[in-house]
């Protein structure tokens, strides 16, 4: 029986045991509900801000109703005009939230009554209309036709030269970069911990000894990493598919903006990043025998991932094009989180991605050797925590004794 089919047998047990578990079904359902709910909520908030406003106009203020509506429409907001006979009646409706605002008084002394705050667009529209009414009155008094002035003003505008034009889809790209990086980060942390816990589980229930009488340590370790990785991939793909469908249905993000390249590169970076970190988590997990120790033994690995995420939030997302982001995206530990942000922002040449993939692949190879060694030397040692030196199989003489150690 060759090694690959042994790894496959082990991986498929890991995969099936987890995918069939209640925990997987529940967490996947919760994630899907959470993501879909978040997107629907975002869409609702987004749509609400563009909803129409009900504005009441009392007496003389009705003269500016038409210009206000036109001005607001030009700014992208719909206003429903409601004439009112008395200020008191209008105020009552504002209070009971039938109206969003009540406009009263002559143009020279216009008052707006609102419940809490005045909508910014409405404020601009009102100010512009009132000023224009006052201006027109003054022009008429001085014998100038307001229409002539309006035409002159309308034809005068500034010509803008954009040296680095901002893509209209830029904000969406940053949001997508954030979502991809967040998904990769969260998945690597959670499933990395699961790998460590899985290794410890086999140690603590002692099955590892029977398994190692049959398979080689690296086969067992790779089987576990691959099996759990497939579970993670299934969960990520389900979540991503639901998110994309819901987002496009609610018109929050259009699928063309999302880009097939971003999705594919996200999956590739997930595979690379997961492999790199899962090896470290597996090696770390093999050094302890009790589930309680999983947190402390994997802490150094988790901290590196958290650092990657913090750097993504503080450096890469605010400016995907900065030199800092570029440098970080080439450091293998950070590439799986930072590079997808650059890819989503469409600011990275292909060759740069290729180089970072090669660097990460090399790191994975090195980690496979180191983690395999730690795992082989530690996984059968039940009891206390295995010292890193012992786990790496360094002979005691080479390590020297603490009194003359140089570290």
């Amino acid at each position, binding site marked *: 029986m060759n090694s690959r089919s042994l790894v496959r*047998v082990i991986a498929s047990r890991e995969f099936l045991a987890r995918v069939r578990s209640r925990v997987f079904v529940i967490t996947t359902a919760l994630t899907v509900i959470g993501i879909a709910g978040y997107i629907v909520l975002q869409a609702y908030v987004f749509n609400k801000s563009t909803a129409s406003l009900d504005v009441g106009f009392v007496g003389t203020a009705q003269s500016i109703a038409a210009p206000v509506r036109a001005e607001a429409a030009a700014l992208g907001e719909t206003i429903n005009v409601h004439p009112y006979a008395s200020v008191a009646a209008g105020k009552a409706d504002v209070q009971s939230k039938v109206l969003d605002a009540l406009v009263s008084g002559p143009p020279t002394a216009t008052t707006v009554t609102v419940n809490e705050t005045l909508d910014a667009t409405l404020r601009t529209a009102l100010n512009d209309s009132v000023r224009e009414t006052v201006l027109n009155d003054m022009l008429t008094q001085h014998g100038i036709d307001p229409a002539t002035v309006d035409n002159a003003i309308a034809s005068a505008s500034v010509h803008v030269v954009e040296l680095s034009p901002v893509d209209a889809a830029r904000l969406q790209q940053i949001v997508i970069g954030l979502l991809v990086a967040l998904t990769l980060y969260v998945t690597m942390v959670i499933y990395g911990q699961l790998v460590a816990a899985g290794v410890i589980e086999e140690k603590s229930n002692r099955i590892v000894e029977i398994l190692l*009488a*049959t398979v080689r340590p690296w086969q067992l370790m790779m089987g576990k990493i691959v099996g759990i990785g497939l579970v993670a991939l299934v969960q990520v793909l389900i979540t991503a598919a639901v998110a994309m469908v819901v987002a496009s249905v609610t018109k929050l993000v259009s699928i063309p903006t999302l880009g097939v390249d971003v999705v594919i590169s996200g999956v590739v970076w997930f595979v690379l990043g997961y492999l790199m970190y899962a090896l470290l988590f597996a090696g770390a997990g093999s050094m302890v025998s009790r589930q309680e120790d999983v947190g402390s033994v994997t802490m150094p690995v988790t901290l590196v991932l958290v650092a990657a995420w913090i750097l993504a939030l503080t450096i890469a997302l605010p400016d995907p094009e900065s030199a800092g982001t570029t440098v970080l995206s080439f450091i293998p530990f950070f590439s799986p989180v930072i590079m997808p942000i650059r890819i989503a922002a469409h600011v990275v040449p292909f060759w740069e991605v290729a180089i970072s993939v090669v660097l990460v692949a090399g790191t994975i190879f090195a980690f496979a050797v180191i983690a395999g060694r730690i795992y082989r030397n530690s996984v059968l040692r039940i009891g206390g925590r295995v010292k890193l030196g012992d786990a790496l199989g360094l002979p005691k003489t080479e390590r020297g004794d603490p009194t003359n150690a140089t570290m």
Partner: protein
Amino acid sequence: MPVVSTLAIQKATVTSGTFRNEVRARSGTDARESTTMLQLEGVSKRYGDLEALHELSLSVRDGEIFGFVGANGAGKTTTMRVVLGVLEADAGSVLWNGAEITFALRRRIGYIPEDRGLYPKMTVLAQLDYFGQLHGMRRREARASALALLERLGLADRGASQLQALSHGNQQRVQLAAALVFAPDLLVLDEPFAGLDPVAVDAMSEVLRAQADEGRPVVVSSHQLDIVERLCDRVGIINHGQMVATGTVTELTDRGPLRFWVDVPGAAAGWYDGIPGVTLVEQDGTRWLLELADAASEQSILTKALTIGPVHEFRRDRPALSQLFRDVMSETAIK
């Protein structure tokens, strides 16, 4: 009829008298019949300052049940782990049919480690399927073998249960099934009787006997010397990492002084005085326990007793394995 025995043990060297000669004649045929399947030669293993195994050698023959006894920490588990390759020996070799054992051959060993282990939340059948497949069986083959084994072990109705839902005894049977599911060539079982009730011990013994009869040697370690005495064809006693005695149970119990119980009602004290090399060990009513020096013959005792009166009992006194075990332990401790 005298019990069949051999004189392979170093200590029982000097022989004379008809009893021992007959024993020697029979022992020759035994050794020729079976061939050695598993052999350890001069295996040593150190954990830091502790020498767990010191040039340990043993051999297990085709179709036999080999009992491995020794105190806690004597090196039984370490020896088994070295055989399975889970642990690497510092020196010495493990041979399989005369050649150095390989990883592929080790995969043909059914193993129950001292620390039991299966997946608690996996069903019994899924678990056995998995072990079958890990040993290279196809899914269907593994399933068929698993079902047959569960039937044989009386667990046919528990296949769909999670392991953790089973009683300790049944979990132990599943553990055995996991070691048997791929039809191994050799069984290595570390303390398979630990924690089992007498009925379960009998059931386990029967299965092991059947395995051995099918030509599959079984190596078991146990503290329960009465079980070992009943079940095993040959026994090895290990102490401080060294094999201090090996042989069949009768061979081992022959190691002690040659003693006979003689029940002669009407015999007076000192009736045996005239027989050379005979001394009294113990008297219990009309029963006398006599010890024979190496040169003495038990036949002369019987002849003498018959001249006194009817002999109701004339029987070789054998120490129980447990007694022998204690003797060996104290002897090697003194060394």
